[in-house]
């Protein structure tokens, strides 16, 4: 380093002469016009703010520990449940059911009123351009907002009441509560509590049957693989659901799919299997069903 530690000389970079030298990152606003005492953000003010933050965090953690996030059952399009958006969308949800926001007026409901309301909110500073800041001196703006809040509270309450009534009328329980109750019951009985969607893998039925040996000996494994999951040929797991014993026997004797699978019967006999072994093999294959 060119500058030793002791150098108090500040390096000044010579920039582009066309760029005006700025007065720092941001010019701090002057608060001398405001009454009272101001104080530094760090540490004085932030400490106060973070006292609030600490209390808030403790409350928040207590909430998360006391109340687990709800989780229902896996989505099933044919389930009969009453759809329910998250609570902060309830007012919109209820509002779109109103006669002038649904049916023939759905366009008015979806685009018209919501568009005007949210547009007005977004552009509030350009609609309320007066100098006055106190809300009680701006009766129109304030009353519109109060009206809107009242409408939101009313609609949210309406949606919730409607939902609870309907749940009661149909005798349904919220799924996340139902799931938790079932899980508790299952846990008490020592059963697994999961509702996970199972990815089906068909197991080999009666794996220790002698037919398994015949299956290997007869040369089936060259195409259908030792684990019966198939290689050149298709998987034979669960084959019993597609063909019965006689059909399988026919396939072994005559082949399948226009010569894609050649007749294998003679092959099997040559490998030392008897007619009875092949018959048993076919019977065993027919038993291969997903449970």
């Amino acid at each position: 380093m060119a500058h030793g530690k002791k150098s108090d000389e500040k390096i000044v970079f010579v920039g582009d002469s066309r760029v005006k030298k700025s007065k720092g990152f941001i010019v701090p606003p002057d608060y001398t016009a405001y009454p009272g005492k101001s104080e530094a953000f760090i540490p004085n003010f932030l400490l106060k703010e973070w006292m609030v933050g600490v209390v808030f965090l403790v409350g928040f953690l207590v909430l998360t520990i006391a109340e687990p996030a709800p989780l229902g059952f896996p989505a099933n399009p044919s389930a009969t449940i009453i759809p329910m958006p998250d609570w902060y969308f309830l007012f919109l949800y209820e509002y779109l059911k109103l006669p002038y926001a649904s049916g023939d007026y759905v366009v008015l409901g979806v685009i018209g009123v919501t568009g005007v309301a949210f547009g007005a909110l977004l552009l509030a500073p350009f609609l309320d351009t007066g100098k006055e800041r106190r809300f009680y001196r701006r009766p129109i703006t304030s009353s519109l907002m109060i009206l809107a809040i009242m409408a939101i509270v009313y609609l949210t309450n309406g949606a919730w009441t409607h939902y609870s009534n309907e749940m009661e009328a149909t005798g349904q329980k919220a799924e996340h509560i139902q799931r938790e109750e079932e899980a508790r019951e299952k846990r008490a009985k020592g059963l697994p509590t999961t509702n996970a969607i199972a990815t089906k893998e068909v197991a080999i039925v009666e794996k220790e049957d002698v037919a398994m040996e015949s299956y290997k000996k007869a040369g089936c494994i060259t195409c259908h693989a030792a684990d019966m999951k198939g290689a050149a040929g298709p998987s034979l797991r669960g084959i019993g659901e597609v063909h019965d014993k006689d059909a399988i026997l026919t396939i072994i004797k005559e082949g399948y799919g226009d010569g894609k699978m050649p007749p294998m019967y003679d092959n099997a006999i040559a490998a030392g299997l008897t007619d009875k072994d092949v018959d048993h093999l076919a019977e065993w294959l027919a038993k291969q069903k997903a449970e």
Partner: protein
Amino acid sequence: MFKNIYNWIDERLDVTPIWRDVADHEVPEHVNPAHHFSAFVYCFGGLTFFITVIQILSGMFLTMYYVPDIINAYNSVEYLQTQVAFGQIVRGMHHWGASLVIVMMFLHTMRVFFTGSYKAPREMNWVVGMLIFFVMLGLGLTGYLLPWDNKAYFATKVTMEIANSVPYLGPVLKELMQGGTIVGAQTLTRFFALHVFFLPAVLLTLLVGHFIMIRRQGISGPL
């Protein structure tokens, strides 16, 4: 040691003014709850930011287990909620935090509205704040589908029907949001991408704008 590293960087990049500006700027009395208890209403913005940080962190951690796929989404959420230590709490933070963000943001908006703080010269900051509000609602909407349980699925179907009723563009809009003709695998990945990449990117950009504008213009004066 740290001092030397800091000095080395500062000599080259002159970073001191940036953080001195954040640390030393004056906070006027009328927003200080130590002087006027009613000034606690000025805390809501900060609390919103605090929960937003918790949301970003817990969301990042949740993606360590979550899979956006119609078979595994539910399974992985159930797994992380019931099998992983503290999974219930981390998911709880993200779930309840989402609601609290909306509450705090609503209170913050009301404070700004009723103190008239959005008036000149702070119009732009109000608009940016409103956009943040809409992005947060979008995050809530897209995040609701991700556990892929019945409630999520049917609520999203309703959303899609609402999108569908927009004149002319409705059916296109619906199919674009669904990523197909039904609410299914492609809707889930789409919502996941929006929830985890697109909307947070927009949110962070808007937040930076929001904060820079606050520092540039200062807090609005007392009433």
